[in-house]
């Protein structure tokens, strides 16, 4: 196998190895050997010679010439992981590679689910990944796209170096996170220019993204310098990178992009401009939308009356309005939605009698236009990240329509929540759970900051407790239970211990449910302790090594000998 890459010496003078192989292939009956010793059978003489040649060839093996060496991986200046944290990571990754494993989850923590959190914490601490774990990390990131940003940020420059050598990891080059150490900093103008001119597409996207977060104007100038020469799909990706750090200074560039040859580029430029409340496009959209939405003063109680556009003219199209609706939607409501969505929310107060967002949302809407209008406002609030309108559209968490079908779906509520600050978000979801229980809360919990704020955590645990008392099986709540394992503050552990005992079985309860609940809570507690230990291991050496109090008292009451 290595005959080509290893130099061999010592072929006999009389008979080369190739001669022996040829003789053996043909057989001594067909090719008698001339020099066979007298009295020795020809095949055995051939084997004798081959044995000598084989051992001689092997004994004479010498190293091959070295192939061209790869450039060494760039330095990773970050400090090394503390040893305990490195072992923890190895365990988390080993658990992943051991396969998902079916069946009931039992009371042991699901380590795979803790990996994202571990990675996020390690990135936040600024540690370098242990080199020998990079292949496992890359494999993990390959299998789970949600892990990629954190895994690649943690894996650092050496992972990108590895990815160039292994086709399985090419995704890492495409998804290289902004600010990766392999990218030149904004101050290195020459390197930036060269990479922009000569880099692969993925490298250019990464460069633009990184530059945009640190020097937005420079990034825009760089993009503008080559804009006309870029391919349409590249222009779209580059334009998308402008989302970060968007400001009024970008408006002239984006206005020019409204005249782009590609419709997708035009639409993205329009979307970016409409997110800039002061932009000319936003003002034009506001004028159009204002024609369609007005206060009806003829009623005794004020209401909003809606008159959707009659046509989609070329100037609307130029501003990014898509003329043709998707199947099943009316043209006029389709256009209306786009106009309202792109209109700065600040214009509505003046247009609708000086009311606040909350008052406007409370106004009745005539002729069944409420759902359409409120949905468009939701999209506008998300696009413009307007906390006041988000709060108004969310309404009170305890309102009956918050839990059921209404103008604003749960998915939209989840997105609106993202515009609120973390404490308000947690408080709203806590209120929602207190009124509506857990069955609809999953999506909303997903947007809350981790670890959950105390009131939110308490409302989730209370709701789980209520669900247990209601006698159903815990796997009806496995989604929320899984979230709680990852998101509940480990400080809540003590409050949970009362739930670990197996309750007396009630007559109307599902058979055995109490035991399963105890097991689920046991897993929750164990996972929280593990998370506390993980956080402790990741703490920088200076501030640590008081033994973790959570771990020290880690005797579950039912297992005490």
């Amino acid at each position, binding site marked *: *196998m*290595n005959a080509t*890459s290893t130099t061999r010496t010592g072929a006999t003078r009389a008979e080369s*190895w190739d001669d022996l*192989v040829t003789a*053996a*292939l043909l*057989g001594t009956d067909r090719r008698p050997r001339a020099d066979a010793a007298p009295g020795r*059978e*020809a*095949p*055995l003489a*051939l*084997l*004798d010679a*081959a044995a000598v*040649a084989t*051992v001689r*060839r*092997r*004994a*004479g*093996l*010498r*190293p*091959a*010439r*070295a*192939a061209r060496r*790869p450039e*060494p*991986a760039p330095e990773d200046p970050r400090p090394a992981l503390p040893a305990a944290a490195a*072992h923890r990571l*190895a*365990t988390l990754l*080993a*658990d992943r*590679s*051991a*396969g998902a494993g079916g069946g009931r989850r*039992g*009371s*042991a*923590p699901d*380590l795979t689910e803790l990996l994202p959190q571990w990675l996020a914490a390690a990135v936040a601490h600024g540690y370098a990944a242990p*080199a*020998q774990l*990079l*292949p496992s990390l890359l494999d993990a990131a390959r299998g789970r796209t949600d892990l990629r940003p954190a895994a690649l940020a943690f894996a650092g420059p050496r992972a990108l170096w*590895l990815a160039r050598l292994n086709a399985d990891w090419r995704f890492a080059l495409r998804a290289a996170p902004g600010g990766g150490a392999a990218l030149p900093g904004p101050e290195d103008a020459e390197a930036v220019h060269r990479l922009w001119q000569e880099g692969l597409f993925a490298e250019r996207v990464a460069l633009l993204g990184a530059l945009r977060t640190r020097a937005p104007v420079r990034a825009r100038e760089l993009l503008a310098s080559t804009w006309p020469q870029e391919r349409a799909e590249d222009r779209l990706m580059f334009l998308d990178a402008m989302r970060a750090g968007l400001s009024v200074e970008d408006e002239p560039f984006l206005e020019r992009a409204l005249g782009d040859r590609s419709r997708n580029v035009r639409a993205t430029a329009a979307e970016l401009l409409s997110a800039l409340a002061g932009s000319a496009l936003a003002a034009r959209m506001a004028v159009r939308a204002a024609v369609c939405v007005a206060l009806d003063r003829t009623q005794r109680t004020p209401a909003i009356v809606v008159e959707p556009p009659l046509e989609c003219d070329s100037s609307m199209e130029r501003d990014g309005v898509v003329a043709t609706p998707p199947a099943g939607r009316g043209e006029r409501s389709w256009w209306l939605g786009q106009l309202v969505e792109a209109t700065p929310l600040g214009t509505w107060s003046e247009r609708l009698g000086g009311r606040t967002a909350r008052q406007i949302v409370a106004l009745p809407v005539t002729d069944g236009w409420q759902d359409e209008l409120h949905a468009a406002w939701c999209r506008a609030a998300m696009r413009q990240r307007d906390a006041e309108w988000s709060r108004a559209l969310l309404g009170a968490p305890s309102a009956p329509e918050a839990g059921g079908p209404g103008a604003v779906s749960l998915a939209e509520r989840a997105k609106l929540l993202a515009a609120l600050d973390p404490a308000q978000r947690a408080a709203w979801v806590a209120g929602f759970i207190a009124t509506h229980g857990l069955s609809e809360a999953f999506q909303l919990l997903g947007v809350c900051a981790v670890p959950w704020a105390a009131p939110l955590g308490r409302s989730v645990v209370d709701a789980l407790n209520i669900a247990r008392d209601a006698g159903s099986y815990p796997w009806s709540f496995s989604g929320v239970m899984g979230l709680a394992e990852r998101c509940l503050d480990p400080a809540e552990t003590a409050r949970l211990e009362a739930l670990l005992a197996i309750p007396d079985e009630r007559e109307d309860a599902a058979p055995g449910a109490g035991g399963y609940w105890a097991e689920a809570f*046991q897993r929750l*507690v*164990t996972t929280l302790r*593990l998370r506390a230990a993980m956080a402790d291991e990741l703490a920088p050496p200076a501030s640590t090594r008081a033994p*973790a109090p959570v*771990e020290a008292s*880690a005797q*579950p009451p039912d*297992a005490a*000998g």
Partner: protein
Amino acid sequence: MTEQGVRWTAEQVLALAPDAASRKAGSKLGTAGPWSGTGSGEGTVWGLCKGSGSRPYQTVVDLAGPAYKCSCPSRKFPCKHALGLLLLWADGGGSVPVSAEPPDWAGQWLEGRRERGESKPGRDEGSSAAGPADPQAARRRAERRAERVTAGATELEQRLADLLRGGLASAEQAGYGVWDETAARMVDAQAPGLAARVRELGTIPASGAGWPGRLLEECALLHLLDRGWLRRDRLPEALAATVRSRLGLPAAADGPPVRDRWLVLAQYDTVDAKLTTRRVWLHGVSSGATRLLLSYGAAGRAPELSLPVGLALDAELSGHPGAGRHRAGLGERFGPPAPAAFRPPGMPTARATARYGEALRDDPWLDAVPVTLERVIPVPDGETWQLADADADSALPLTRAARSRPGLWRLVALSGGAPVTVFGECGHRGFTPLTAWAAAADEAVPLC
């Protein structure tokens, strides 16, 4: 040494797991939740693990060994409870306190082990015989076996001659069945070494380009082995012992015991339908010797001997007979394996191939020798990889097996294009890396 100092790492514990499922199950139990009554001391760890039943399982590990006992019904060895307990202990988070006295249930087992002397076993197969009861009968048995082996070797010579007479080209058409039958005849002849080599021969015609050359090589070496057996009375004693061991005749590890701190360089298993073979490479910190321990497990069961890479074991080893061979038997152990910040001294690639050539003098059937390469860089070379000297223009190609293992990428990642130290097996097929050390760290990174 403090108690903290002798803890193993999680990787070292997980390396003991008999399979991936046990690894997963064990790592789930490596948290304080299900455990109570845990403790450790004097090279032992114990604890109670809450399972599905009402009584917790009693788990105890003797780190010298390591040996395990658990009251669970699992047939896995070690079971997930033992792994979980060791992980918890390795974690060092205070969940397994140091305690002077083990509880009764653990103490009894440990006591029993020590009384039977099992924590210092010389239980290597073949060496267990404390001398046959009837030397006369034993000699007759040995003579009968030698006759059968001679008959087998003679028959095999005949078959090889027939093959060469008709030509290797016919071997390609003949298929595997012929070889299988011949291998079975060698098993009957009580020459397992010959049987294994014959089975190998059968796989070569399907092994891709260049097979005739490889088949001739292996036929020639097999012929050499036959001839060696048939003329063993004329060979130097050491070479005759090598021939006997290549044929698979049992021999006790009867060399003089060498006490040393033996660093565990590598441990890996090869599995076939009937047997799991575990190879453990050890390096004597003072003696500088490299030795191989073999242990076996029946199909589906991991061999009992398990030594985590990177630990060092204070123990006596005795060599098996046979010149140029590294195999040894484990004798008395003087304590549990403990972490060692030590790496074996290495050599450049040219010295490694020379070392292989020299070893062939004593054992021409040797496929590879254990070597540590110093300052080498893994370099891609077309479809394959090589280890190139950092300071010279020469390199060793990796074996086909090594190229397809995930350990290759661990090695490449560890190096990052910079020189590393690599322990592995170097031979005519190329180099198989087994363990590596980064330039700046003493941590041994297993690659197999």
